[in-house]
């Protein structure tokens, strides 16, 4: 005799209470596996170190922190200069290669022109009460933003781990960044 349907009246069938307990248990492990926690995450890779390109990652990082995001910013290549305590105060703006600049490229390429355009930009930043790079970093660190300095490029650029702002994480590489990106709700390359 074929009995494809299990005999629900058998003595060893689980009781309704046992089934309910089992469902609850499964729901809990499902929530654990999928939900983890509700905290949203953002991962930014910062690769540029010019004055204009230092702002977007810092503004987004501090704003995301204000939204309650857990934020990781991985700084590599010229992006390291943003975290470099001394160099971050002297980031330059290039006048070459930007057609929106008020001077033609041929003039912009003259010696000293980067200094002129940087001074112009710094004056605008001061006049406009725009936060400085240093202010944005300190503010972000206070809000729990994790700034990471790529170890490979620290060595490539001949920087020392002590050159960076207090609170900056060193000794991390691409695998850390990749893991952060995989876990994040928002991933950006700047």
């Amino acid at each position, binding site marked *: 005799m074929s009995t494809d349907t299990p005999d629900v009246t058998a003595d060893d069938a689980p009781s309704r209470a046992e089934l309910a307990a089992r469902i609850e248990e499964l729901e809990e492990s499902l929530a654990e596996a999928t939900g983890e926690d509700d905290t949203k995450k953002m991962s930014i890779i910062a690769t540029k170190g010019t004055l204009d390109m230092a702002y977007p990652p810092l*503004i987004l990082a*501090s*704003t995301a*922190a*204000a*939204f*309650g995001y857990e934020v990781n910013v991985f700084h590599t290549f010229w992006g390291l200069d943003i975290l470099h305590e001394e160099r971050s105060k002297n980031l330059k703006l290039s006048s070459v290669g930007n057609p929106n600049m008020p001077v033609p490229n041929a003039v912009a390429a003259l010696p000293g022109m980067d200094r002129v355009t940087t001074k112009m930009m710094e004056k605008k930043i001061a006049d*406009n*009460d*725009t*936060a400085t790079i240093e202010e*944005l970093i300190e*503010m972000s660190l*206070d*809000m729990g933003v994790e700034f990471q300095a790529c170890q490979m490029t620290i060595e490539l650029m001949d920087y020392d781990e002590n050159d960076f702002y207090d609170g900056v994480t060193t000794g991390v590489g691409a695998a850390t960044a990749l893991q952060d990106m995989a876990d994040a709700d928002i991933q950006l390359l700047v």
Partner: protein
Amino acid sequence: MSAEFDITETLDVKGASCPMPVVKTKNATDDLESGEVLEVLSTDSGSMSDIDGWASGTEGVELLDQVEDGDVYKHYVRKTE
């Protein structure tokens, strides 16, 4: 909408521009108790949209009102939890 709430604290971020109005508003609400109201004074015209966006995207705060008063944008944020 008239002000039908008591202001607990006032945050003056006049002069500051993006992202400081939002960031400082967030930090100021951290110091409030549930139910208390923060008044934010800003001269950044972007703060109208930014603080609205921040409040709707953030748990535990509620934007009660936004008023444009001459050059000053006033925001009223209640902490809800």
